[in-house]
């Protein structure tokens, strides 16, 4: 049984050729930094859409509409929904059906200093909405019914710089001042990118006589598909979409974006593998005599191979750590917010990109793999050094 090479040997080897090590570490750091940012973004998206994942919540829109934004549901049609048998009831026996109106307001983005404007969703709701959208929690005050007041989702407040006490110009002509009286959380879900106000007040301000949509909560244990079919049927003739499906379909643009981004990171990852291979080959070539010496004093080929792999992983981990740090600094000092249109809502979904321990662990794992792949062939060459010939080399 031969002894393994001490780890400190591999570690200290990296500092023999400081410049080369530094340059390689920086290459890996660049790739790792971009990768962590992408994962942070994808994670924010996944988190947000997963929150809106209650299959027992149905969003009901007009046939032909593609989202709540371009749907108009008459009050007559809305009332037909209350006949549905599977709607859940609250403790007081009220059915959990929420009439909602969706309009938009154009607000300047904080992240480009107001150069561009985002279309932010304004949702008129009644108090039933807080029972149907179970993850929505007001943080503090809620809008009153007799006064023009709104509450703002946390994500929207952050990305469009809205504070309690601000007045937003809403209404069809943008001439009705609505005071922001509170914020609300939706566990990070898409509703957090919205502004909520009292439905009758907003309908009046926007000259609307119809709702945009109805949101229903179904009794647990019932089959949502059954109700979807019922709503589609001749008696009602509306389109019902389970909440998870609705929001997943809104992520279409974001998926295109992420696909492009991942393809780019993948290509750079391969480039990093070649770069590490290059560095490690050079390291092996420069240390042929040293390797032969190690073999002479009893280290086996396997130990040598393993030694070089470990060295490459050290190298990669340094780069990975630096990349994560760089990404964290970027998010901290340059900006961590991003917002994108839903595919058909014409309103924006705001995200906060965050580095989670999972993402950091994933990135370190990925760069370790890159390091190993890059070091594989150089390490094999090292393990096969011909001892006698190598010792004779200059």
């Amino acid at each position, binding site marked *: 049984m031969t002894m393994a090479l001490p780890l400190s040997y591999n570690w200290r080897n990296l500092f023999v050729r400081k410049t080369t090590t530094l340059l390689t570490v*920086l290459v890996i750091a660049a790739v790792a*930094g971009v990768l962590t940012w992408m994962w942070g973004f994808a994670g924010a998206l996944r988190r947000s859409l997963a929150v809106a994942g209650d299959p027992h919540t149905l969003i009901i829109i007009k046939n032909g509409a593609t989202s709540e934004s371009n749907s108009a549901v008459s009050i007559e049609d809305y009332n037909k929904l209350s006949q549905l048998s599977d709607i859940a009831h609250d403790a007081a026996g009220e059915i959990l059906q929420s009439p909602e109106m969706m309009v938009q307001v154009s607000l300047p983005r904080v992240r480009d200093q107001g150069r*561009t404007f985002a279309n932010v969703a304004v949702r008129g709701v009644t108090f039933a909405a807080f029972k149907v959208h179970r993850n929505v929690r007001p943080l503090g005050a809620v809008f009153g019914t007799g006064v023009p007041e709104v509450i703002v989702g946390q994500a929207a407040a952050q990305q469009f710089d809205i504070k309690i006490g601000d007045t937003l110009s809403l209404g069809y002509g*943008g001439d009705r001042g609505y005071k922001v009286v509170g914020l609300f959380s939706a566990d990070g879900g898409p509703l957090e990118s919205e502004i909520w106000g009292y439905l009758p007040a907003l309908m009046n301000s926007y000259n609307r006589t119809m709702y945009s949509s109805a949101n229903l909560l179904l009794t647990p244990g019932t089959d949502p598909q059954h109700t979807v079919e019922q709503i589609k049927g001749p008696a009602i003739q509306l389109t019902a979409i389970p909440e998870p499906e609705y929001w997943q379909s809104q992520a279409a643009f974001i998926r*295109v974006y992420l696909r*492009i981004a991942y393809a780019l990171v993948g290509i750079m990852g391969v*480039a990093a593998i070649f*770069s590490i291979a290059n560095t490690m080959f*050079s390291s092996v070539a420069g240390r042929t005599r040293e390797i032969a010496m190690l073999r002479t004093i009893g280290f086996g080929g396997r130990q040598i191979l393993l030694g070089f792999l470990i060295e490459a992983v050290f190298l990669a981990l340094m780069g990975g750590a630096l990349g994560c740090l760089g990404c964290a600094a970027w998010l901290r000092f340059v900006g961590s917010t991003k917002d994108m249109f839903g595919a058909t809502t014409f309103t924006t979904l705001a995200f906060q990109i965050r580095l989670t321990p999972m993402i950091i662990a994933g990135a370190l794992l990925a760069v370790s793999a890159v390091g190993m792949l890059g070091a594989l062939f150089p390490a094999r060459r090292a393990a096969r050094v011909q001892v006698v010939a190598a010792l004779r080399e200059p």
Partner: protein
Amino acid sequence: MTTRYVLWQNLLRNPLRTILTAVAFALPMAIFVAAISLVSALIEMGKANERQLRLAVHHKTTIVNLLPEAVRRRVEGLDPQHQRLTAVCGMRWFGGKVPDTQNTLTSLAADPDTFPLVYSDADMTPDETAAWNRDRRACVLGFAIAERYRWKSGDRIVLVSTVPPYLQLEFYVAKVMTAKTQANYFYFRRDYLTESLKEALPGLADAASRCNIFWIKCNSAADLHSLQGEIDALFANTPDETKSEDENAFGANFTQAAGDIPGLMRAMAMVVVFVIALVAGNTMMMSFRERTRELAVFKAIGFQSRRVFFIVLAESLLLALLGSLLGVVPVSALLWFFPVRGLGFGPISALEISPFAVIGSLAMAMMIGLAAGLWPAYQAVRLRTVDALRRVA
């Protein structure tokens, strides 16, 4: 022993390293040329839009809110002699899609009389304009849409709107626009829409004739800026306050909303330049270190310092050229023959390679090659022959 021979031997003496460096150089280069193509296409498009001198006037609250038809007359009233503006074209969002498909087309109803003037980049021939004026169902669409649905001039097509009251209308294709800036747009006559809306919603005549946006074709950039301020002032403190933006500022709102892919590409291009520079620098350092003795021998046998400097630098440049060609040529060829279509909505209809990007990428690679080679080349010149010969690698 010619310099060329030395250079060639240097690249071939460690073919593995040359290959690894070239590939590590080529992959980011491939990204770079694609990213720069996109960015340069955007710049080109921005310039093309600027030349069109169009001002967008929409509702201040949001573009979704409709403005009364009368905005057109009032804007025209600002310049009755048409000294500053050529024409005003009101537009209303239709959001049509082919029945039973998913994708909503960027389809808008436009004032029939002024559309050919305001959209001179639609490039309509007198015959096409005549067809547009003659047939109330005439539509004009961009080549990207035409390709996707295999539509051509003279076709009869049907779109169903995704906004209330979800009209289904039939159109006659009067023209396929070839301008890149209009690749993904579909325009038809607003009188056709207004009448159809009035039929579907009797009693809502005012709502049926409203517009989302008014495009104002100006005579000069100065006129555009002066009108921008005057129009917003004209409607200030009315129930329909406006916001006026030039076409590029207007478009930027949507580019951002689609996730800012150009921004992603710009950022990627920067990271990639950083990576390439590191890869090239690393190789040149390694290569120099291993050959210190050899360079000393060159000097000992009488090579001038200048020639040694040149040999090291030229090797770096050659390597950069090799790596960049390996990355740029295949990607350019691929994108040349198969441009990537369907980048989501936004101004760019397809990712195509631009000659500017190819030249720019190669120039960037040469600069990196130069930078990577300079330090080792300088070191080679400074090398003290006696010390270096004694040094053990």
